[in-house]
């Protein structure tokens, strides 16, 4: 009965979304307040209905109601409660319900908090939002109904893929979805602005917080996903340029560009047409990612929804939503007048460069991801495009961006003074060069690229701090004056500093872990010891252990350095009887400067065990840096100017993309990563 209530609530929400998509649009066109006024209650009630549906589905999972087919296929009575709850979105149908839950939550927030939006703009934004939502409701109801019943109900469920029974992955999809869906708000604003025929700084002030919120969530989501891949897949790598990873990375790159170009619209009333286009493309890439992940068109994509009907439906939605918006753009964009030109050497000039490089990077990733599909469709054979391609193309595009990032952030608006900037950044440049030389020298002159990468990281980190120091007058003014200036600095300026410094931390982690990873694959008898990058690991054999819903063989490795015991590493091989599958749990000891990473392999007839041991220098910095970047975005979100008319950032609630059955692979091949910075700068 509860499942039927959920199903019914979804149908009502679908109808309401249609109403919200049509009536306010007509009302705004005809100037009829009564019709426009339907948008706000429709958006709020829609959210309530989806929340009911979500709770109904959650209830079915928690009480293990196996008469619901979805629960029977993806749950099990022995599963820990946490994974019963997260199991709601660890599958295609449930994750779509979570998707629309977040979508309608954001719609309700615009409706509830949008008092100071012009009435027609609000009506149009909500109408566009309603149409997007209607598309997804139709998708759920017609191709992926989560509430289908199963008769007779099985006594026991089939369980959840053990790889997904993990906190890192359980909370990674909600963040990703907050990101994707957040970009749908920027999209709705962009389309509404095209219909209105007007884009102004006030519009940009409205769009920026949403973009920023989405960007923060996506940053955290991608970092969580990469962290999960790192410790759960057991191959010592953290980024594989897998199509699934690229699917989330492309909207991130485009969203980062959008974040920066919206600043130019807000401050200088320029780049309007471009910003609107970018908002459309960012959401388009998010949808494309969803299509790639769920249609099963790419190998090594999560075997998520291999139902071709679903793929066709999402492709249809993608063409309709993005194609429609682009057609509207083609008609209306020439009418968007820019607010004047600007000098190439200026903050806005630097932001144009940022946008150029970030979109180029997104295009490169897109090409690499889609190339196997295109070639196969043209009958050119089956190929795979792996890390070497992305390292050869993505990294060279990123390097100029990172070099320019620090300079651009220090330039003044309108007309910058390059020599003044360089003198302000003298310390950063000196530190960067010193770091490059020191690393190159200590590495014996080899690996110049890695030395350059670390120099770049120092340039970003110190450059961000130097810019802040110059601004608040450290070294120039009395401490009291410095404090007053620091307190008076807009939060968005703090946000920018934090985010760019975080980017520097990420670049350091990416460089060091890619360049200096040590991998050893050994066959070890109990009592054997292995040397690894100055550490010593002694294998003490294995023991049988048991968990709540699995059995495990646990190895014991004693980690020492210079004769001193540091830690005991206990990698596991788990076997889940309900799901009939096995997983490998890596054991990781982190010093924050490096990870010692051990994986237990197979047992040979001789009684020896295969062990895979890694020393990954600076690898934790990748995730620390990503969190710092997201924190920078969050600091920027608290800026008073950005709060004007904008809702406060929502706590990342429950959201979710689901499941990953991902290729296990041998041969870790971490690749360059990182991207643009974040956040806005105060005047």
């Amino acid at each position: 009965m509860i499942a039927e209530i959920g199903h019914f609530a979804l149908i009502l929400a679908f109808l309401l979304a249609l109403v919200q998509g049509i009536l306010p649009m007509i009302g705004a066109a005809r100037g009829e307040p009564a019709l426009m006024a339907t948008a706000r209650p429709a958006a709020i009630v829609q959210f309530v209905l989806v929340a009911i549906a979500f709770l109904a589905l959650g209830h079915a999972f928690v009480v293990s109601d196996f008469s619901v087919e979805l629960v029977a296929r993806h749950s099990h009575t022995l599963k820990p409660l946490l994974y019963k709850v997260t199991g709601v979105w660890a599958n295609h149908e449930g994750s779509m319900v979570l998707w629309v839950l977040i979508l309608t939550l954001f719609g309700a927030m615009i409706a509830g908090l949008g008092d100071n939006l012009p009435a027609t703009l609000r009506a149009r934004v909500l109408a566009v939002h309603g149409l997007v939502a209607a598309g997804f409701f139709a998708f759920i109801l017609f191709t992926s109904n989560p509430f289908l019943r199963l008769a007779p109900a099985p006594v026991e469920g089939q369980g959840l893929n053990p790889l997904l029974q993990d906190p890192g992955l359980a909370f990674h999809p909600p963040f990703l979805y907050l990101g994707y869906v957040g970009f749908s708000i920027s999209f709705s604003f962009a389309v509404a602005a095209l219909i209105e025929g007007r884009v102004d700084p006030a519009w940009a002030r409205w769009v920026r917080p949403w973009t920023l919120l989405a960007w923060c969530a996506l940053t955290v989501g991608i970092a969580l996903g990469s962290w999960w891949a790192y410790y759960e897949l057991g191959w010592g790598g953290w980024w594989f340029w897998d199509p699934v990873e690229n699917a989330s990375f492309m909207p991130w790159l485009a969203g980062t560009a959008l974040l920066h170009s919206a600043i130019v619209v807000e401050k200088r009333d320029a780049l309007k047409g471009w910003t609107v286009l970018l908002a459309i493309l960012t959401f388009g890439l998010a949808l494309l990612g969803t299509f790639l992940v769920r249609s099963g068109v790419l190998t090594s994509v999560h075997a998520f929804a291999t139902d071709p009907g679903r793929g066709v439906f999402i492709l249809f939605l993608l063409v309709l939503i993005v194609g429609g918006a682009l057609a509207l753009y083609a008609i209306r964009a020439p009418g968007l007048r820019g607010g004047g030109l600007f000098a190439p050497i200026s903050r806005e000039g630097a932001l144009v460069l940022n946008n150029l490089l970030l979109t180029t990077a997104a295009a490169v990733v897109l090409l690499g991801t889609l190339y196997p599909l295109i070639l196969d469709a043209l009958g050119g054979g089956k190929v795979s495009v792996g890390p070497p391609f992305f390292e050869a193309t993505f990294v060279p595009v990123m390097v100029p961006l990172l070099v320019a990032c620090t300079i651009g952030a220090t330039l003044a608006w309108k007309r910058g003074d390059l020599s003044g900037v360089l003198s302000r950044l003298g310390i950063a440049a000196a530190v960067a060069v010193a770091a490059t030389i020191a690393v190159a020298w200590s590495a014996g002159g080899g690996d110049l690229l890695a030395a350059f990468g670390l120099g770049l990281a120092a340039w970003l980190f110190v450059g961000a701090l130097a810019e802040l120091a110059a601004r608040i007058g450290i070294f120039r003014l009395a401490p009291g004056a410095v404090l007053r200036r620091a307190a008076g600095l807009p939060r968005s300026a703090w946000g920018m500093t934090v985010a760019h410094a975080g980017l520097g931390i990420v670049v350091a982690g990416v460089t060091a872990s890619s360049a200096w990873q040590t991998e050893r694959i050994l066959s070890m008898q109990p009592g054997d010891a292995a040397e690894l990058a100055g550490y010593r690991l002694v294998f003490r054999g294995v023991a049988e252990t048991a968990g709540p819903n699995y059995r495990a063989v646990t190895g014991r490795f004693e980690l020492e350095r210079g004769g001193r015991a540091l830690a005991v590493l206990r990698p596991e091989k788990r076997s889940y009887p309900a799901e009939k599958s096995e997983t490998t749990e890596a054991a990781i000891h982190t010093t924050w400067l490096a990870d010692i990473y051990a994986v237990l392999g197979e047992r040979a007839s001789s009684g020896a065990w295969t062990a895979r041991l890694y020393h990954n220098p600076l690898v934790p910095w990748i995730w620390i840096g990503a969190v710092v970047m997201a924190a920078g975005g969050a600091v920027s979100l608290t800026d008073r100017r950005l709060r004007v008319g904008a809702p406060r950032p929502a706590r990342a609630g429950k959201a979710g993309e689901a499941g990953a059955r991902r290729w296990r692979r041998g041969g870790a091949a971490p690749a360059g990563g990182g991207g643009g910075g974040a956040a806005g700068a105060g005047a």
Partner: protein
Amino acid sequence: MRAKRRRLAFVVCGMVTLGAAASLVLAAFEDSIVYFYSPSDVAEHTPPPDRRFRIGGIVVKDSVIRGADATTVRFRVTDTLNTIEVAYTGVLPDLFREGQGVVAEGQLDSAGRFRADEVLAKHDETYMPREVADALKESGRWRGAPGGGE
């Protein structure tokens, strides 16, 4: 006039960036694309020994031989028409099973054996890699997907 020249400067800058990116992409495609072959493809047109490629098929039952030190493994991969021998050093993925689909990346050695440095197995016991399914269909031995895949 000034405005026009500035706009031109931005456009030229954009073109140069895109051009550079395009040449990077083309060069990288040339070097780093990895083709997928079935054992029959390999039997018909043997790729040169220095060429990296992927093979896929079913792991032949009872063909897995582990070396004494447990880190080297040999097995045979078949598309039911032809079979190729694969040697791999490292830890096999958890879902590597005899009688199930597998994809391996590497190159041929002088003896015509495939030296894999990467072995992929899908994390789902019922899944058949798409390439493997297509290759089996081509060889006319497809008996319908056991689930997933297609």
